[in-house]
């Protein structure tokens, strides 16, 4: 996958004609000096990539097969880390929660922004107001949104139950109930992140040529038919891209469960990344943490590769 990406990018780099060589001798030395200068410019960036991207990726795989305690030499333990992690009762819960979270976030976090963008695109007044307001929660630090909703969900004086009482509806346990906790967190994440999605959908909707709608209307298509046969096919590429990006982002959810529920109640909101954190910083088991990281990495790598492939083919079409 890596190779394909590299090759595809490489082919996208425009090839410029090589300027005529200088007439004097010492061409080779000149070229060497140019190369040295080019690498001088690259040095800082490359060092950081090597240290904080490439090396950790390799190291995750290596440590996954080691018993690793900071300060003492690592020992090879084969697949012991993987089997230990697999037998952890929290392992199943973490994956189940993460996948459920991702699926729910996709259902809610995809449908709501799309409908909102559809409606906003029809409104001809206060356009700037809507765009600013919907994006406002994105700019609030995630920790603050998490703490804010933790307070809203409070069973005592929380605003969420107050609102239900005001509407004469039965109150909910929200994050305190094992069966409602995960959905409550999805609501927080959707509220906090929806702005970007809405704006991107809006831009995509605005690029649909108006003649398509006119033609569809002349053919007698009603509102829903126009959405189905014009809007959705025309924005299909953006929809697919955002879905994949969202899957990649929500599979790495950490802040909301960490801040709001602490993984509870009864492990109902432990996510894979949370479990990785626990292995490393609570159990001091870096081998187990890396084994989990590798599993997450492989799955997310597949989604990312798919995403890059899609964006690249989209670019070539344009």
């Amino acid at each position, binding site marked *: 996958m890596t190779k394909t990406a590299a090759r595809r990018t490489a082919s996208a780099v425009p090839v410029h004609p090589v300027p005529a060589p200088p007439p004097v001798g010492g061409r080779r030395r000149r070229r060497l000096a140019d190369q040295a200068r080019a690498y001088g410019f690259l040095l800082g960036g490359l060092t950081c990539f090597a240290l*904080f991207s490439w090396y950790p*990726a390799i190291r995750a795989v290596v440590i996954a097969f080691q018993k690793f305690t900071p300060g003492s030499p690592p020992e090879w333990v084969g697949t012991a880390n993987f089997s230990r992690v697999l037998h952890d009762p929290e392992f199943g819960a973490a994956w189940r929660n993460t996948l459920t979270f991702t699926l729910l976030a996709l259902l809610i976090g995809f449908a709501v922004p799309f409908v909102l963008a559809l409606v906003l695109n029809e409104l001809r007044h206060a356009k700037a107001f809507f765009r600013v307001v919907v994006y406002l929660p994105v700019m609030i630090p995630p920790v603050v949104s998490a703490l804010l909703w933790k307070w809203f969900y409070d069973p005592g004086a929380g605003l969420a139950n107050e609102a239900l009482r005001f509407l004469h509806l039965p109150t909910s346990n929200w994050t305190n109930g094992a069966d409602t906790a995960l959905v409550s967190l999805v609501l927080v994440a959707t509220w906090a992140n929806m702005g970007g999605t809405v704006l991107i959908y809006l831009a995509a909707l605005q690029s649909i040529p108006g003649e398509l709608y006119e033609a569809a209307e002349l053919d007698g298509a009603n509102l829903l038919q126009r959405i189905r046969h014009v809007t959705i096919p025309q924005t299909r590429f953006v929809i697919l891209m955002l879905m994949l990006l969202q899957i990649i982002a929500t599979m790495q959810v950490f802040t909301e469960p960490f801040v709001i529920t602490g993984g509870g109640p009864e492990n109902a909101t432990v996510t894979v990344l949370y479990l990785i954190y626990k292995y490393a910083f609570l159990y001091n088991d870096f081998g187990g943490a890396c084994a989990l990281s590798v599993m997450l990495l492989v799955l997310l790598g597949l989604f990312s590769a798919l995403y890059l492939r899609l964006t690249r083919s989209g670019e070539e079409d344009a």
Partner: protein
Amino acid sequence: MSTRTLVSPAALARPRGRAAYWTVFTGVVALFTLAFLFPVYWMATSAMKSPDEVAETPPTLVPRHWNLGGYTDAWDLMQLPQHLWNTVVQAAGAWLFQLVFCTAAAYALSKLRPAFGKVILGGILATLMVPVQALVVPKYLTVADLPLLHTSLLNDPLAIWLPAVANAFNLYLLKRFFDQIPRDVLEAAEIDGAGPLRTLWSIVLPMSRPVLGVVSIFALVAVWQDFLWPLMVFSDTDKQPISVALVQLSQNIQLTVLVAAMVIASIPMVALFLVFQRHIIAGISAGSTKG
């Protein structure tokens, strides 16, 4: 003036269409106000209520007595100046490091034709496929014990600054922008005797102001909003940025004080957004259509 959308202008011009339009419009305004503005209003005003009033059910919509005690307490008790300053230092350094090293590397890859340039670019783009969060543990171990140097960057802002440079997205954004600068412009500078550094500084950078603005905003927001990474690398309370400090202190502090601290922590990024909202929104919208 506006282009044709889902609903035809003719349908909107009819009395029924106009009534429907204004109904939907009012509904959306109400929904947006309730869903997005009200929580912010609630946060900002609850911090001004007395501790008893905050716990009341049903809650009061407007504080009975406006007092700024919550805010001043948060400022003093939670050491907010210290944590805000830490965040500013971390964000500003990450921004500067990214701007210097990513720009230089992107320029080299785009214009200086280094040997193995394509391989390097491939390696950088491959990191886009590796989700950041999935690698935090090995990255933490690397920062805790740097290879060759065997020093630890834990509790040091360098632990934020240096990994921030390894941002393939921003680097690629810059490189793609530099690719569009015509070669003749740079060759003209070269004929006039300008070296690569001079060309970058006096010609490429002034032409790249839009993309530098976008990268700057991304860099600042990313550091300000981050939580897991600073939680790992700053165990020392005095070094923690505001996001980590808020969570650590949220356990045993009065609600009004905590809420006031949350408001204060949100102000810088919300202010940045309100000032640059047109650029930020245009950037997000443009980024999507280009992919």
